[in-house]
């Protein structure tokens, strides 16, 4: 969940410059509108409830940043929000504390996908099929997305190999639980690229997340893949009538980690315990449509919020988790192949 660099820089200036005593609990997230929402929902209420002071920082991701902080011995971060790939790599490299789940509600308190030895999930979000209800009646599937004969019009996809191979296989009828097993075979990769080949002349590639609702709204494409947050946001703030197809969407989880050797471990654990409260997590959804990861975070949500919540059990059941291990191993090779394919 990476925010714009500018927003990050601004947030860093604002909050990193705040006076810190011996060293207050330092919480690091993605900046921008998301961190603003987190401040409302988590940081300030936590501080008020416990009297623990905190400072904020923000970052743009990248395991190298965390590695340098730990190896240089100059780490000033305590709690950091990381993407799933950084969680995997950093845990392997010993950059994070192993979590004591007994102190934060136990493993069963969370959705099973959100539980990791080194980090606990805080938000879950999806890459979905989105369309403009003003131009397309009904709810398209990935198979319809690929069916340009029946539904003529351009299709938007993110310029990159990740996500698209998965969508291609889903469109070709591969059951969700078989997608990565199929991609782990040479024939499966072939099959996904053949599907992309069929659609290629009809694809408009988007690059930054903000472009996805934009090309949909401007009528450039009939349907597009998009991060769910951007679509809900466009509906809320620009009065769009975009639809979200949860079936066959891909999701990932951002987690909180405690940096190795943090002197503020106690405070960090108290924050994680506070943030584990499903009633607290539920307050994020009205601000920004990312799903809370504690069980029950969707209980009592009104229907219009439940509909756009990625962790609504009905939505989650039909989604597929992105396999980070697969992409860690294969991103180099498949990106090269994808770029070559795209250039032809």
């Amino acid at each position, binding site marked *: 969940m990476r925010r714009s660099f500018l927003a990050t820089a601004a947030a860093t200036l604002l909050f990193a410059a705040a006076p810190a005593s011996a060293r207050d609990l330092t919480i690091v997230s993605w900046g921008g509108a998301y961190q603003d929402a987190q401040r409302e929902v988590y940081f300030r209420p936590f501080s008020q409830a416990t009297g623990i002071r905190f400072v904020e920082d923000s970052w743009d991701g*990248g395991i190298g940043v965390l590695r340098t902080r730990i*190896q240089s011995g100059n780490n000033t971060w305590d709690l950091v929000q990381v993407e799933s790939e950084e969680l995997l790599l950093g845990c392997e*490299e010993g950059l994070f504390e192993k979590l004591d789940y007994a102190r934060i509600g136990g493993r069963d308190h969370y959705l099973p996908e959100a539980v990791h030895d080194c980090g606990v999930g805080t938000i879950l979000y999806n890459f979905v099929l989105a369309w403009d209800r003003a131009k397309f009646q009904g709810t398209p599937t990935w198979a319809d997305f690929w069916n340009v004969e029946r539904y003529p019009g351009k299709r938007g996809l993110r310029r990159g190999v990740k996500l698209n191979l998965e969508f291609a296989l889903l469109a070709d009828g591969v059951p969700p639980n078989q997608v990565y097993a199929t991609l782990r075979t040479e024939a499966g990769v072939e099959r996904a690229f053949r599907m992309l080949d069929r659609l290629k002349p009809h694809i408009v590639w988007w*690059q930054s997340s903000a472009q996805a609702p934009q090309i949909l709204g401007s009528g450039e494409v009939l349907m597009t893949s998009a991060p769910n947050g951007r679509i809900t946001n466009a509906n809320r703030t620009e009065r769009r009538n975009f639809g979200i197809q949860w079936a066959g969407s891909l999701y990932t989880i951002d987690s909180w980690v405690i940096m190795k050797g943090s002197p503020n471990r106690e405070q960090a654990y108290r924050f994680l315990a506070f943030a584990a409260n499903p009633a607290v997590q539920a307050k994020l959804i009205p601000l920004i449509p990312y799903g809370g990861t504690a069980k029950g975070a969707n209980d009592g949500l009104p229907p219009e919020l439940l509909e756009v919540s990625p962790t609504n059990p009905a939505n989650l059941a039909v989604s597929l988790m992105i396999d980070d*291990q697969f992409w860690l*191993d294969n991103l180099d*090779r498949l*990106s090269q192949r994808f770029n*070559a394919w795209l250039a032809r």
Partner: protein
Amino acid sequence: MSQAAAIETSRAEALGRRTRRAARGRSVSAALLVAPLLVFVLVSFAAPIGAMLLRGVEDPEVGPVLPRTLAALERWDGTDLPDEATFAALVEDLRAARAAGTLPVAASRLNHDIAGLRTTLVASARRLAAPFEGSAREAVLRADPAWGQVETWGAIVRARGPWTDFFLLAALDLRRDATGRIGPVPEDQAIFRTVFFRTFWIAAMVTAITLAAGYPLAALIALARPSVSAVLLFLVLLPFWTSLLVRTAAWMVLLAREGVVNHALIALGLFGAPKQLLFNRFAVVIAMVHILLPFMVLPLYAVMRQIPPIHLRAAASLGAPPLAAFWRVWLPQTLPGIGAGCLMVFIQALGFYVTPALLGGGADQMLPYFIGFYANQTVNWGLAAALSLLLLVATLGIVGLYGRLVGFSAVRTA
């Protein structure tokens, strides 16, 4: 020599000394005045770029992490699996690297070469951390079957450093196999030659169009009445005060499916339904021409303004028809401006990143896009640096060629 003459000589010498001293003083102060700028350029421009380009030929990650393995692989011929001693060395290296926390960077480097090697290294190090009985070779092969592939060992040898041609070869769609022979990469991985060609082709096309469009415009400005030419010049300069990104975004609005251009063309009855004008080569070229046009017009205008109007009148009075007067009198005098304008537009066009990224489709991306892609997305800085290096060399080659054919003194007058 008479005394008077001697005095004269010594005076002259003293004068010469004073002049030289004054000149030296002036050049010292000039050097001091320039020094901050020079230091700034060196520190903020030359040094970082140099360091970045160096990464295209450096390979520092794996050597220090697997020293024993690489020493043992010195004797290896690359045709069959290495010997037991090499496997034992690998086990020692992996244990040491795991303890020191140096494995991840080396593992990522090897993953750029062969997919999955990152996991192979990290997982093998974990599995081999505990002591085992018997042959190292069997233990390593048990830890991960990838060690049974000759290519795995080939990748380690290729990454031994400290210098490498791996990235430069990759940037030319070439690679070495385990025995060190250079050959083409598999066809589904080959991309960069196409991209190089495309980059130069788009830049050439943009240069040709800006010349065709800019030449009459520059002539119009140069030949118009001063009040008119001031207004026209202002209009040419106007886009300079708008950011490149804004101008690119403006083209997105203009060319969108429900944008101004489509609406106008439908209203005129040229199309029945909106056409896709965005995300293709046409959009990229037209926006680049728009952005780069001032760089063509200004040098042309500067040269044309210096051509005395009397030349054309003289040609006419000597009986030259307008076309001949233009062709034989006017055009040759504008050649330095054409050279300077084309050089500036072409070189800038080679480096375009944002405009093709926002307006182009998949097959319209130019080299800078791929440099950005490898630097940011797959964090393969070696390849990004190698691509930059090749682009820089090609650009310098073109500048050099220009210098040989046209000469830089011609540019100076522009």
